[in-house]
Each structure stands twice: as C-alpha cells, then as structure tokens.
C-alpha cells in the first residue's frame, strides 16, 4: 500500500519528528498504548455481545425482526449527545480519566445485567446504558491521547489507538464464537466473560493511565499557564480562564475565577480553526453513507452470496487496522488535511466503483479496501487535527463538539439516504450521495486550505 511506502523513511520508533529536528521522543506515549489496550480490551468485550445479540434475541428468545429493529434504533441520539456531556464534564472536573473510567465502568456493569433481562424493555434499557457509557468515555479518552502526545505526533498516536481498538473489534466475535462452540447455548457464558473482559479494561485504565490534564501539547500560548495549573489550585483557576480569553471567551469570564462553563464550550466554536474543522466534519458526515448501506449496496451490486454478508464489515475493519498507523504517521508528515481529504477521495472512489464499475470479481475486495482506507485516513486523523486547535483545558469538550457534530450528521445522512433510496432507488441515491460528498470535500478542501488558519504544523 502506498501509504506504508510513503511513511517508510520514518520507521516505527524513529527519533526524528518532522520539522523539529531530532527529539528524544518515543514513537508513541505510554499513555496512548495504555489507552489503546483499554480500548482493545473493551472492544473485545462489547463486540462479543454485539456478535451474539441478534442470535440470542431472535433465535433464542424468538423476537421478531421488528422487535429487534426497534432495539436497533434506540441509541442513535444517545451516544452522540452523551459524548458532548462526557467531554464537557471531563474538562469541568479536570479529570479525564475519572469520566472515561465512569464510562468504561458503566458499560462493564451492563454486560452481566444482560443475563437477567429477557424481554425487549429491560434489554433496551441495558443497551442504552451501555451506549451511554460509550458516549461518556469517547471524548475524555481522545483528549487524554492528544494531551499525552506532542503536537507533531498526534496522527500517529491516534492511528495506534484506532488500530488497537479495531483489533479488539475483530477479536471480540472470534472470542464469542469460540465460547459458543465450546458450550451449549452459552450466551450466559458469553455475557459473563464479556463482563470479566470489560472489568479488566477498567482495571488497566485505573492502573496505567494517568489522570491529569497533561500540559505537554497545549498551544504555546496556553502551555505555560497550564503547566502552572498543576502547581496550585488557585493558579489553576486563573490558568483556566486565560486561554479562554486568549481564544474566544469574553473578558468578564477571564476576570472571574470560574471552572469550565458551558459557555466556554460554545465559545470554542468561535475559534476559527476548530469551527472550520467542525463544519467540515459535519458537511462530510452528511454525505458519508452509513456502513450498513454500503454493504447492502455492495451485495446488490455484485450479487455475492448471502453467506458472505456478515463478513463484509470484517473486510473494512481489517484494512482499517492495517493502515491506521501508517495513515496517521503520514498525516503527521505531509499534513492532516491532505490525508483527511484523500480519505474522502478514496471513499468517493468506492462509491464510483459501486455505481459504475463492471462486475469484476475483484469489485467487492476493492470497495471494502477503499472503505477501510477511508476509515484509516480519517477516523484518527480528524481528532488529531482537532487536538491541534483546542487548548488543553477544553480538549475533551472540543473533541466532543466535533465528534457529536459528525455523529449527528451521519445519522442525518442515514435518514436522508434511506429516504432518497426509497424515492429514487439505489443508484440515484448513491449518485446523489457521491455528488454531495464531492461538493462537501471541495468545500472542506477550501475551508481547510493551508493559508487559512488551521493546524499548528
């Protein structure tokens, strides 16, 4: 893959940071590895449940498709909106680890509860709580990753994290099916083991992830203040307000010794660089067709056998896993904007193949490869870019703002795409999405242009 080749001059563990000359920095901070391990373990746990849940509910309990479908739609808003809350809370209590830990803990608690619920109502409640946990932890976790990594290595750090995370997502179903094959209808064993694995994730988080707002990579103006924030609580408060003034908040906020407020969070949107990123994330999210639709379209387009359908997401994940680190490193080297936009170009190429390519035998592999490359080039690169625009004290809030915007936009896209599919049929709906994506990518290319204020690089 060309991404790997391009990053070859800077192999793993290189002591050279681009543009800064030689520095003594490890390839990836230990905090990032610890968080990656936590995510990997937690994803093993949650994907174990995900893999067996349809079978448990539909074949085991006899739920009708609509019953399960009703479950399926419950959590869309939940995770996105909770993410904003989690991000803001983490900045507010100035303890990202605490909020992330509560999120991981809540999800862990939910897994054994599944053993005791066997009708749709309680199961919906449990799964909603599980998603709430996921929403709570996402922004503080990404903030911790970015705060423990120097600015020029953010892309690689997020790439490592996403690769570890996806490894967990791939291992989870394997573990679940292994348990099912060893046991007799061992759903209880799957849920129980999943809970044990989730608890282990929380233990690793508690033991190996530092909690504080680490001052290392905050923008130069804020970093000195942030460093002093660690020294005394009183100064911390002052330091808290200063970057807000430096960035966007009004003078009266700066003079009042106050914790992070909601208005600081909104004030973040007045940061041009963050606002531009948020706008682009939303625009591109609005034209990113959800994975499930891509797999359905791919199956309709190629007529590949039904038995391969459940394997399609694994194809995307495998490519994502292989390329997340090289893509992140490449982003650090040649610019996050370039890689982020290239990712969307790859997605666009995937749409084009789905629309116009002849029925090559290789078509499914090509589309899944492009889909995975899209994730590799965007999923970690976007938070890396966000990290460079938000002061450390509001890092989790900034992550959450962009993350929530993107999630809601993607949800909107799902609804709109479903409607377009109904009105116009498959081909025109995808063509419309592709046209939309092209326009939004062009706008993003312009908004994020190098002359405009954006990365610190």
């Amino acid at each position, binding site marked *: 893959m060309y991404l790997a080749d391009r990053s070859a001059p800077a192999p793993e563990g290189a002591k050279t940071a681009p543009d800064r000359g030689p520095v003594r920095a490890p390839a990836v901070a230990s905090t990032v590895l610890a968080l990656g391990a936590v995510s990997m373990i937690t994803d093993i746990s949650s994907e174990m449940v*995900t*893999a067996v849940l*349809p*079978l448990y509910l*539909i*074949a085991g*309990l*006899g739920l*009708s*498709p*609509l*019953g*399960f479908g*009703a479950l*399926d*739609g419950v*959590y869309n808003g939940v*995770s996105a909106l909770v993410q904003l809350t989690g991000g803001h809370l983490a900045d507010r209590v100035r303890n990202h680890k605490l909020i992330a830990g509560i999120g991981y803990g809540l999800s862990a608690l939910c897994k054994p509860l599944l*053993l005791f619920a*066997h009708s749709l*109502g309680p199961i*919906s409640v449990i*799964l909603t709580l599980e998603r709430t946990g*996921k929403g709570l932890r996402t922004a503080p976790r990404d903030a911790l990753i970015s705060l423990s990594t120097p600015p020029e290595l953010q892309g690689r750090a997020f790439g490592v994290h996403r690769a570890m995370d996806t490894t967990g997502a791939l291992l989870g*179903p394997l573990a679940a*099916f*292994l*348990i*099912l094959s060893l*046991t*007799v*209808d*061992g*759903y*209880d*064993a799957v849920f*129980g*083991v999943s809970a*044990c*694995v989730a*608890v*282990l994730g929380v*233990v*690793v988080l508690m*033991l*190996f992830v530092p909690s504080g707002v680490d001052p290392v990579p905050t923008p130069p103006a804020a970093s000195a203040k942030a460093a002093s924030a660690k020294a005394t609580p009183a100064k911390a408060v002052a330091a808290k307000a200063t970057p807000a003034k430096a960035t966007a908040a009004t003078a009266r906020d700066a003079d009042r010794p106050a914790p992070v407020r909601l208005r600081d969070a909104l004030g973040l949107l007045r940061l041009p660089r963050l606002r531009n990123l948020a706008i682009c994330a939303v625009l591109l999210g609005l034209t990113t067709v*959800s*994975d*499930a639709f891509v*797999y359905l379209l791919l199956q309709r387009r190629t007529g590949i*056998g*039904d*038995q391969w*359908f*459940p394997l*399609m997401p*694994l194809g995307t994940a495998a490519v994502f896993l292989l390329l997340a680190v090289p893509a992140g490193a490449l982003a650090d080297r040649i610019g996050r904007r370039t890689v982020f936009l290239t990712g969307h170009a790859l997605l666009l190429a995937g749409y084009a193949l789905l629309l116009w390519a002849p029925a090559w035998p290789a078509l499914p592999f090509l589309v899944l490869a492009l889909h995975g490359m899209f994730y590799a080039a965007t999923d970690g690169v976007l938070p890396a870019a966000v990290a460079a625009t938000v002061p450390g004290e509001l890092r989790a809030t900034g992550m959450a703002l962009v993350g929530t915007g993107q999630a809601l936009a993607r949800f909107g896209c*799902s609804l709109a795409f*479903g409607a377009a599919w109904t009105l116009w*049929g498959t081909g025109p709906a995808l063509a419309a999405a592709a046209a939309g994506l092209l326009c939004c990518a062009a706008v993003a290319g312009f908004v994020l242009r190098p002359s405009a204020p954006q990365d610190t690089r």
Partner: protein
Amino acid sequence: MTLSPSRRLLVLAVAVLLLGGLAATLVLRSASRDDKPSAGGPTVTAGTVTLDRPGSLTFLNGGQGPHRGALASVPADAPDSERTASELDCRRFYAAAGTGVCLRSTPGALAQDNTALIVDSELRTLRSFPLAGTPSRARVSPSGRFAAWTVFVSGESYGAAFFSTRTAIVDTRTWKLEANLEEFAIDMDGRQHRAQDVNFWGVTFSKDDDTFYATVSTGGETHLVKGSISGRSVKTLAKNVECPSLSPDETRIAYKKRVRAGASLWREHVMDLGTLREHALAEKRSVDDQAAWLDDRTLAYGLPTDGAADSTDLWTVQADGGGAPRLLAPGASSPALLR
C-alpha cells in the same frame, strides 16, 4: 494511582487471574450443562422422529441437558409424555406433509454460519441454502411443496440505525428459489408501491400452493399482505399485523398486533379474513412469535420462560378469545402439529 510500576503489574496479574478464573468457570459451567438435565424438566430420549406421522407434535427441545436444540416430537394428545429427540439441531423449525424446514445457526470461524435446510420426512437433507443473517421465521405450505424462511440481516453493531430482513420461498418440487420477496410487486391500497424500505417477514401458506400471507413493513407501518407465488405479487389487506398464521380452515389468521405505538408490546389477535374483523385472545402477555394452529380452535406460541434467559415455553390459547392460556410444553419452541 500512586503505585510503583511493579505494584501495578502485580495488581494487574491478580486481576487477570481472578477475572480469567471467573471467565473460565463460566465457560466450563456452561459447557458441562450438556450432560445434566435440569431436575423436574421434561424427559428426553434419543430416537427417530419422522414428519409423516399424523398426530405428532414436533418442536425444538429447549430443556436443559442433552438434546437441547434438537427437533423432538411427542404425541399431540399427550404433550407431557417423554420427548423423542432427533439428531437434527435447529434454531427454528416447521414441518407439514413430510417436508421440514430447519433454520440452523452454527458458530463459524469469523461470523455466525446460517443455513436453511429442507429435509424430507426422515429428516434427510434435500437441499441447503446459505442465509444472510439470523434465523427468524420458518413455514412450510400444508401440502409440503413450498417452504419459506425469514432472516434478520445485521450489517453492523447494534448501535447503528439499520434494520433489514430477507424472506425467501423455495419450491421443493422444482427447487426454484425466490431469494428475496422484496422483488415481488406490491399493490398497496390499489396502487403500485415501490419503496426501498420494504421488509417482508413471517410467511404463512394456503393449501392451494400459490396463495400466501405475510407481513410487509414500509414507511414505519406493518401491513398484512396476501400474495401469489406464481404472480410474484402481493396486495395489502390490513395494517398493524405481524407474523400472520393461517387457520387450517383458511377463514382466519392469527397474528400479533402492536398495542401501543412505539412500544415493543404485542398481543395475539385473530382476524376473520372475510370481514377483516379482529378480536384479542385471552393471552394478556406480550407474544412475539409466529403462532401455529393446532386445530381450528387452538393456537400454540412461544413465550420467554419466567425467570430464565434464553429459554421459551410453549403455550396454547383458544382462538375465539375465550378460555385462559395453558402451558403446552416447558422448554420448547417452534411448534408444528403434523396432520
């Protein structure tokens, strides 16, 4: 946490041991369940089950112990008697006139491996069809000629807004497969309905080997449709009807009706196909199953076992709305009365 690195590793090791031990115990306990029938449960013995013996009730045995998940049969007039278990394991099963359809789900290497098996009266596999998702509903036409199945297709994690089913009908005489009923023309209230959000599930067949009834969902509503296999078309009859089941005399359908908008709460109803008038049955619990008619007066359906996850019991109730639900067979699912 202010522990030294070696202390941290020690705590981690202890946690891994404790959690690993607990996880191993859970797996071992669940693996040994195979050998131990639960006390007071139904007795099951291995034997020969055939699908052409009128007066037998077949179902999937769900009792703890050996033969869990196996197709079993009992005399219909003595459902409490010892169960004869076959070697056929299914998630969902139905049979009529010597033809059976068995939806099977086995753990594969990377994903669940789902298959529909068409079996003859000796339970020998005639054909198998790969499935795109989790087995949900299965039916065979009264003559044994047609078989239908529905699977739930999940493309991704449960966090995504995504809901899709596939319903297929196969002709066991010609092996012509209608792999996706969504390709059938839909006449909705007299107009041709074309939409991509259409989902079919829960087929039930008439004796004429052409007419069938099913659920169609589109635009957030569920419809009862009457279809023709040869005509490759369906026509809507009524709204808010799910998982229909045609009575042996073909005058009524039993189905589940959503009783509160938006809530996952269903009550079993019976509708007269002549007048489209409906009445609720005496069963007050939420039934999420495709019921089976034992005769023209009695319906059988599965309900989650009280206090036990992953197990269902079979219940019966009068089709006229009178009487009270009665337990037919504990630890059982997918009932079919052989005629």
